């Protein structure tokens, strides 16, 4: 059976070249980067080379990159690191963070946690496309606001937020700006030389690197309180012996992303557009979620009337197609995706959602195969569905 992977927003396969680059650092060059001897120096050099590669991809300086265990840690470090530093300073004014209602749980749950610790958090609404409102942002700034955290691009519906404008507002009010760019890096141009961003989260496994490693860009001069105590690695910001093979993998993945991004993404975007058009044309009552233009080049997100997403995913899986959904039935908490609810869908509408995210390995045949299989599967599920008949 044909197997078609369309879940690149969940994770990507490790690139062969990245694997090759990592391999020596498991057993041959195993040194601890903190050691003074040649084994240690070898590992240390590898880390510093990686730092340059990561910095190079996003236009940062080497000393602005901190390695972490992935996107979630980067988000935690950014939010908590800044928050804990400001708690006492802003005690009288009421320390205040602004974020959006469609953030990844790594940001959202961290904000909820910070609320319990006495911080105030404003969760900005989004419109039907998932875009925040810049006026609302501006009006939400209080005397105590010290941080704005808004994602670069949404992981579910692919909407790209107006990062530059957000950064300008942040600068104007003298507030720090963090952006979770886990989905954006490697897919669209992210250049911190041009963007007024102070902190930015990156994950390796979304860009054909290994799982369990990521980075946080922290602009020179921005201070963070470390959230993990120990031996003072990463300039004292992130203690813990460095994941050398992982970091080497992240560096190599960034180097390749920089070289390939343009070609890859114009090809992927063409396939994605064909997929969207094909599905909207061939499936009755199908709708595109997210913004028609301001969206990641590899993201397609749909809603089908009277369909439940988990059933849809499992049926597609039977046909070899790997995808994902925001349906309540498929979530651990049995709640519909907070992103889909935030863009105004009802829980029943959110049920029928399907996310297809493309990547380097996808071909035109893959798209044709999905266009052949999907309408059939939708038809079958609608036959089972009482909601379809009622109409």
């Amino acid at each position, binding site marked *: 059976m044909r197997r078609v992977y369309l879940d690149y927003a969940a994770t990507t396969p490790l690139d062969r070249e990245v694997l090759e680059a990592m391999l020596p650092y498991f057993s041959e060059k195993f040194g601890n980067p903190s050691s003074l001897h040649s084994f240690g120096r070898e590992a240390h050099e590898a880390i510093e080379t990686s730092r340059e590669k990561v910095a190079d991809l996003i236009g940062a300086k080497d000393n602005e990159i901190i390695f972490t265990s992935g996107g979630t840690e980067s988000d935690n470090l950014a939010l908590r690191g800044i928050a804990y530093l400001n708690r006492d300073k802003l005690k009288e004014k009421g320390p205040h963070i602004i974020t959006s209602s469609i953030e990844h749980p790594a940001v959202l749950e961290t904000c909820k946690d910070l609320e319990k610790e006495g911080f105030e958090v404003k969760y900005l609404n989004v419109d039907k496309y998932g875009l925040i409102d810049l006026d609302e942002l501006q009006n939400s700034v209080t005397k105590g606001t010290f941080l704005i955290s808004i994602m670069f691009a949404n992981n579910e519906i692919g909407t790209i937020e107006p990062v530059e404008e957000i950064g300008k507002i942040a600068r104007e009010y003298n507030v720090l700006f963090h952006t979770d760019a886990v989905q954006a890096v490697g897919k669209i141009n992210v250049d911190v030389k041009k963007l007024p961003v102070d902190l930015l989260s990156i994950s390796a496994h979304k860009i054909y690197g290994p799982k369990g490693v990521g980075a946080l860009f922290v602009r020179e001069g921005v201070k963070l309180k470390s959230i993990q105590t120990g031996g003072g690695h990463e300039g004292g910001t992130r203690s813990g012996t460095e994941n050398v093979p992982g970091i080497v993998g992240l560096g190599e993945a960034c180097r390749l992303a920089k070289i390939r991004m343009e070609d890859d993404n114009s090809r992927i975007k063409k396939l994605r557009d064909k997929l969207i058009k094909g599905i909207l044309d061939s499936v009755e009552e199908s709708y595109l979620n997210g913004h028609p233009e301001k969206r990641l080049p590899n993201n397609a997100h749909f809603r089908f009337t*009277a369909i*439940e997403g*988990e*059933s849809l*995913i*499992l*049926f597609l*899986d*039977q046909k070899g197609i790997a995808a994902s959904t925001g*349906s*309540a*039935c*498929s979530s*651990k908490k*049995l*709640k*519909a995706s907070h992103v889909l609810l935030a863009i105004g869908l009802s*829980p*029943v509408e959110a*049920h029928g959602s399907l996310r297809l995210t493309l990547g380097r390995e996808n071909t035109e045949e893959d798209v044709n195969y999905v266009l052949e299989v999907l309408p059939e599967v939708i038809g079958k599920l609608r*036959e*089972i*569905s*009482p*909601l379809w*008949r009622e109409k």
Partner: protein
Amino acid sequence: MMSMYSKKVMEHFLNPRNMGVIEDADGVGTAGNPVCGDTMTIYIKVKNGRIVDIKFQTFGCAAAIATSSMITELAKGKTLEEAEKITRDDVADALDGLPPIKMHCSNLAADALKAAIEDCRKKRREK
């Protein structure tokens, strides 16, 4: 997700038995799932106090579809009194178990069947 379901659940989910509508049903029952917002409808045809035909339609997850399919198999041929006693655990057991997080879906099937039986009785009384 797939590995959390038993083979039997997957089999019933992919090839649901008795799926559809009975136009001239003697009883129709609908149940909604307050947990995730799903719905199921069961149609029964009754002769001499026995369920001679039964069909279902479900808007829900794989577990909900599989339990609907299974309950129609369990109920077919039974008297209304017997069918009424089918519990969500009977359905789950017949499917070789359900993941704990999906047990609530089997309520749907048991409730919809009970509602269909009630509906049938009510209609008979009215006649």
